[in-house]
């Protein structure tokens, strides 16, 4: 197996915890992993992305080549579109639809939606609303991870183990809340991909 993922969002939104969980799950499965991330100045409310590559074979480059990503997973709709040239022909966009507006020239949301849906493989939901409904607003990144999980060749319960590993120190309540959010996201994606 080999899955190349671009994780996208705005500095401080929490894309790195998604990477950490998938990394923990992949490590347990004895898979190869490379995950490049951005620190420093760019984290201060700017656009951030992480290249996550998981494979059963050794991985050469820490960066995903253009046109080769299987997935763009984004906590923010405009940020999902920023990395389109990396997405492969058959690749999927899995994104939150709630804009994070911290700039005064943020594009018209209708335009963002329109461009998003010119791509055939899109799972786009208000992940924050789902998180609020099933767990807590702070778990929207776990809803997003759940929504992306059917496209990643790691068994779902192994990803849940990853969530347990990463949040374990914070107590059983936090773990359960995050797993609930993750499952809700997974259900969404399975429903939507069937359509």
């Amino acid at each position, binding site marked *: 197996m080999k899955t190349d993922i671009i994780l996208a969002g*705005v*500095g401080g939104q929490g894309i790195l915890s998604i990477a950490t969980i998938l*990394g*923990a799950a992949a*490590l347990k499965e*004895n898979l*190869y*992993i*490379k*995950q*490049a*991330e*951005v*620190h*420093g*100045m*760019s*984290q*201060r*409310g*700017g*656009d951030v992305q992480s290249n996550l590559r998981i494979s059963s074979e050794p*991985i*050469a*480059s*820490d*960066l*995903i*080549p*253009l*046109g*080769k990503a299987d997935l763009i997973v984004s906590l923010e709709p*405009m*940020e999902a*579109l*920023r990395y*389109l*040239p990396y*997405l492969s*022909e058959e690749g999927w966009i899995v994104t939150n639809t709630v804009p994070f507006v*911290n*700039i005064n*020239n*943020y*594009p*018209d949301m209708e*335009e*963002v939606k329109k*461009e998003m849906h010119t791509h055939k493989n899109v799972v786009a939901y208000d992940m924050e609303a789902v998180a609020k409904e099933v767990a807590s607003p702070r778990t929207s990144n776990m809803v997003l991870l759940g929504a992306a999980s059917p496209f990643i060749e790691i068994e779902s319960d192994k990803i849940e183990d990853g969530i347990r590993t990463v949040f374990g120190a914070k107590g059983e309540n936090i773990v359960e809340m995050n797993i609930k959010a993750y499952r809700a996201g997974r259900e969404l994606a399975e429903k939507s991909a069937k359509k």
Partner: protein
Amino acid sequence: MKTKQLLLGDEALALGALKAGLSGAYAYPGTPSTEILEFVQGNPLTKERNIHSHWSSNEKTAVEEALGMSFCGKRAIVSMKHVGMNVAADCFVNSGMTGANGGLLVIAADDPSMHSSQNEQDSRFYGAFAFLPILEPSSQQECYDMARYGFELSEKYSLPVLTRLVTRLSHSRAVVEVDEEALPQNKLSYPKKENEKNWVLMPVNSKRRYVQLLKDFPQLIEESEKSPFNAYIDGADKKLGIIVSGLAYNYFKEVFGDKCPFPYVKVSQYPLPEKLIKKLADEVDALFVIEEGQPFIEERIRGFLNRGVKVYGKLSGQLPRTGELTPDSVREGFRTLCPNLEAAAETAIKGASTVTVPRPPALCQGCGHRDVYHALNDVLKEYENPKVFGDIGCYTLGYLAPFNAIDTCVDMGASITMAKGAADAGQHPSVAIIGDSTFTHSGMTGLLDAINENTPMLVIISDNLTTGMTGGQDSQGTGKLEDICRGLGADPAHVRTIDSLPKNHDDMMKMFREEIEYKGLSVVVSRRECIQTARRHASAKKK
């Protein structure tokens, strides 16, 4: 026994050093090197073995401290970002002359593409300049393995070893095989009899030592030729020979996998392995050099005459001269040289989004630097040609809208000294704005110049009680900034303090105005804890 861990390149190197008997780690925070010392600080072995891991005031003090530890026979690492090498250069270059006793690794993390830096300088030039061996890992595993190898190399030749990282290795995670056991630490010991004189760099010793350094250099080349990290790999197609170094090796492998048709030399240890490169050059029609950063290898093997075997790379335009390499730019380089090569064929790429706009970084909401800039901007509106000299840190973001508050940003500490030079030239108001950590890094000495001449200028130390930009490391001046200024001789009446809070806007304006009007040197310390570390402290308290 080995275990597998998922580690950043920075962490793998730090862990490698810990497992190889490290006694002291020294550093000043700087992206992308910060995580090296942070990892050492968080590792149980550090506590167990009482390994030194406190932050230093700047990169020069860090290298000197590490050199002192090496003098006493113990293994030490010192880490910094590439521009930190400029600060450390005095000690670093001379450490080639003194040599090392205990294994000493100087780690420089370069930032090609300037993700979080002011330039793209390539630290390998410093290594060559100081006649020192350089290690350039290409993977996280090599980062780990090279720590121990580097210490051994350093002790074998009694020389410091430069280790060069780049952002995409420092800040990329991969699975690393790690030893369970750690080597014992070195005992206290002093330089060998024949090396004692090297440590006192008076001309009488230096002249003799420099001759020795040059005489010993061929041994370092030989060491590179048999290094486990350098290799010649044969290929059937001799039209092209590849020289590929460090991280670039990964992009090269991404293009070809294990099926490169051309012979190549992988370089991860310098000085360049001359024999391997000559062997390659003798059998191919042309060479293609793929390296991250500046054309260090390319310049060395082609010279400006570029006669003999043709050398392609960054200087000849096959690879971009600026910015970091990517698997795509390396593939494109091969495509321009060998248009029919299948592995280098173009892939179909989706067009870029037409609605996406840039999202530049910004100061956090609730950050005290914001309040300083609001008040400063409002006061400076009262003057015809105010100039504000900025510095390195989160507050450099004051350059961007909505503040557009600073006119310069050059290097650590330059705010104060440039404001002084401007005031010397007759500029008024001349204002320097500098963060607390940058002030103790390189601002204090410049302030002394201004104090000694009572230069009419205002220095604002925007104190957020931490080293913010790199993620909140301890700041060396916390709790003593006013004392430092007064201790250097600043007039206590003009060393003033205010909390940088929105409710103090008018008071800040008044204080800035009064001190700009004062015809001498003033310092205003505007203080408010970084919002990020304040949140962290609050949640730690809750637990």
